[in-house]
């Protein structure tokens, strides 16, 4: 057990524990806040694994933007403050499939990598990642920027009823009138 192993174990335990709370908590808002803990622990795991830039992007994009967006959505949909009783479906199929997938994959990985010891990677700098992205991965990078732009436009069109949903709205009004 090296220091890296202990760190990996501790951060992994935090990530998995918070993940369990995300999918079991009866409070909508608490679920989102546990997601912050889980994603933060995972950023710590990236740091230990030497992917420094990815860790900071994870903090910036996930914890800073995605979770805030999710919490905004929780509030905009008038979620109750206290615990909700009707959040869950029957557990059995979910436990079967989710537990099967998780434990099966874990067993597969544990079998494949057992206790092989790997040297610590040298910490990846932003310079190296930049060389990679703008060297070998330039085409996917540009495609991704187009995808982001279209997602942006799509989200705006979807959420503004005066642009996107006009036809549907007039149709339902017509239906109600008739």
């Amino acid at each position, binding site marked *: 057990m090296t220091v890296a192993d202990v760190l990996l174990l501790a951060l992994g335990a935090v990530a998995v524990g918070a993940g369990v709370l995300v999918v079991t908590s009866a409070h909508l808002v608490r679920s989102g806040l546990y997601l912050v803990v889980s994603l933060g622990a995972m950023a710590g795991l990236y740091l230990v694994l030497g992917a420094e830039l990815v860790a900071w992007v994870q903090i910036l994009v996930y914890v800073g933007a995605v979770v805030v967006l999710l919490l905004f959505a929780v509030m905009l949909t008038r979620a109750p403050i206290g615990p909700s009783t009707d959040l869950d479906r029957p557990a059995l199929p979910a436990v079967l499939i989710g537990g099967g997938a998780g434990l099966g994959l874990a067993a597969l990985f544990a079998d494949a990598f057992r206790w092989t010891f790997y040297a610590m990677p040298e910490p990846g700098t932003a310079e190296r990642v930049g060389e990679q992205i703008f060297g070998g991965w330039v085409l996917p990078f540009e495609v991704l920027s187009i*995808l982001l732009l279209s997602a942006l436009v*799509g989200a705006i069109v979807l959420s503004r009823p005066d642009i996107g949903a006009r036809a549907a709205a007039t149709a339902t009004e017509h239906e109600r009138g008739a």
Partner: protein
Amino acid sequence: MHVVIPYVVGALLFGLGVYGVLRRRNAILVLMAVELMLNAVNLILITADVSLRPGLTGVVIESWARPGSGVPAADTGTGGVLALFVIVLAAAEVGVGLAIILQYYRMRKAVVVDDVRLDAGEERVAG
């Protein structure tokens, strides 16, 4: 370091995400579970970048990826680049997904996945 630890953590988190998607009825909670799954995949990508690096020495990458630079060895750090791409995709997915959820909430005053009627459009055409 023992690379099996992050691999197993990633696998367990993926299982938790699957469980959450199947178990939760609230659409926002389903999105949170999807985020858990995407992050598990990211963790596995980064871990694979560390653990499979020794096996990549001397591997020649496809020529279209690096035009004009001779025959380079396979790059290390590709897992990190892919993880960054996945993060960007997840951000786009959450944006569009939440727009859909909010629009649905505005129409029906509910965010319960079970109540979404997939045949509503056909009925309108028929009626």
